[in-house]
């Protein structure tokens, strides 16, 4: 226990980096994921094909392998970055975007087709139909699964610890090296700081769900 207290500065540094990775990757994943979902339901076959291909590949590949590609294969292909955090963000957001795309697509599908048909009939374009009519309704049903995905993202960010980024889990490993006799406490400390991010997210999901729930 005293090992945890003595290492609070390291925990805090790791916590901030985990939060940073999660927030940036989360925002990118939400944007990319929504675009992918829009492509998936678009009338253009090529876009639908690309989106389907991307989603199936990204969500069916182990995250560790995606990290390996981002951190090691990309630099070899000439994509150089100064900080390994960039690789972690690329890996996390490209992986999570696939799940977000699927969630948003299911939300879009849950909006009765009559809504889209009515919008089309008054002359709205595909983008307008999606932006003004379908997505605002879809978002309400997909908030709980989206937050689920974001919670998973926070936990997935621990993989970055194995790819040269010193986030919470990376510090956890370093500290268990330093305090070999108190590994249990050190790891409980790591878990506690993860909960500090994920539990509020879960509560938020619960709150939003009640707020925006609509009777159908």
């Amino acid at each position, binding site marked *: 226990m005293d090992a945890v207290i003595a290492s609070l500065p390291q925990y805090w540094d790791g916590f901030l980096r985990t939060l940073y990775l999660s927030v940036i990757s989360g925002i990118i994943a939400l944007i990319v994921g929504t675009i992918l979902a829009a492509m998936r339901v678009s009338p253009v076959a090529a876009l639908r094909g690309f989106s389907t291909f991307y989603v199936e590949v990204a969500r069916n590949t182990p995250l560790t392998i995606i990290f390996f590609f981002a951190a090691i294969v990309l*630099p*070899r292909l000439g994509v150089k970055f100064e900080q*390994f955090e960039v690789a972690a963000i690329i890996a996390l957001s490209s992986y999570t975007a696939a799940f977000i795309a699927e969630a948003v697509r299911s939300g879009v599908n849950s909006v009765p087709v009559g809504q889209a048909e009515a919008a089309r009939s008054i002359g709205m374009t595909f983008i307008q139909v999606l932006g003004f009519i379908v997505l605002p309704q879809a978002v309400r049903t997909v908030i709980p699964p989206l937050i689920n995905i974001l919670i998973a993202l926070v936990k997935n960010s621990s993989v970055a610890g194995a790819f*040269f980024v010193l986030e919470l889990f990376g510090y956890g490993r*370093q500290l268990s*090296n*330093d305090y070999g006799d108190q590994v249990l406490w050190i790891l409980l400390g790591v878990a506690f700081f993860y909960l500090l991010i994920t539990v509020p997210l879960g509560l938020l999901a619960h709150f939003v769900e009640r707020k925006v729930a609509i009777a159908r």
Partner: protein
Amino acid sequence: MKAFITRRKSLLVAASAVLALSLSACGGGGSSTTPPVASASFDAGTTMEKLNKAQKITIGTKFDQPLFGQKGLDGKPVGFDVEMGKAIAAKLGIPADKIEWVETVSQNRESFIEQGRVDLVIATYTINDARKEKVAFAGPYYEAGQALLVNKDDNSITKPEDVKGKKVCSVTGSTPAKTIAEKYGAEVVPAATYTACLEPLRNKQVVAVTTDNVILAGYVDKEPDAFKLASDQTFTKEPYGIGLKKDDTVFRGWINDQLEGFAKDGTYKKAWEATAGKVIKTTPELPAINRY
């Protein structure tokens, strides 16, 4: 005890004779590194006598450490540790093919010695006080230490001071990582394993990888066209000893005598040049033997 002393004397004579021979034969350059088997006799009751009578010795070594102890395609380990083992066995009157090699890893070395599953452990085995409570160490026969691995075409780094403020990869929380950060001001890129450090080095995302020179030399041995050691010199000292049963003081003293003999008669240099010397070109001096 008297017999023991006279034996030591005769060994000294033998050693100087060998030295004279090797001096006169200088430039000949034999290909075999295995020293000739001595016809030795030992005091009754000693471990040396027991092993000599049995004509068999079991030595624990690493099977996965290139240049020091690595299992070859024929199933026999090769490396500097293995050569040391063969040389000691030869002094016991046991030919190399009668040695039984057992793989010991870092976690089981003490227990293998305590249980008597091996007679000796020569396995890049660092001498420290915690281990001395369980086993005895002859030697040290080599001083390893922290070094830097760099890309082959990089000549800008030759000493640890050169990596100040630069990115250096090492294992998270390891002692080498702390040394390079705290003493030499490098920015440590943490990795899970040392092999994980190699790709960032190849991609020039880090300028160097740091840990024991023995481990790094193994990577150079595998990919001599990609990597090199920044220098043969190390900037920390890790004495490697030969592990044996804790209470066997006679055997320990005898091995220490042999080690000093190897340094004198050139066995040590020959063993080094045939193995680790392929990467670490500077043949080390035998460190001062620690007779405790």
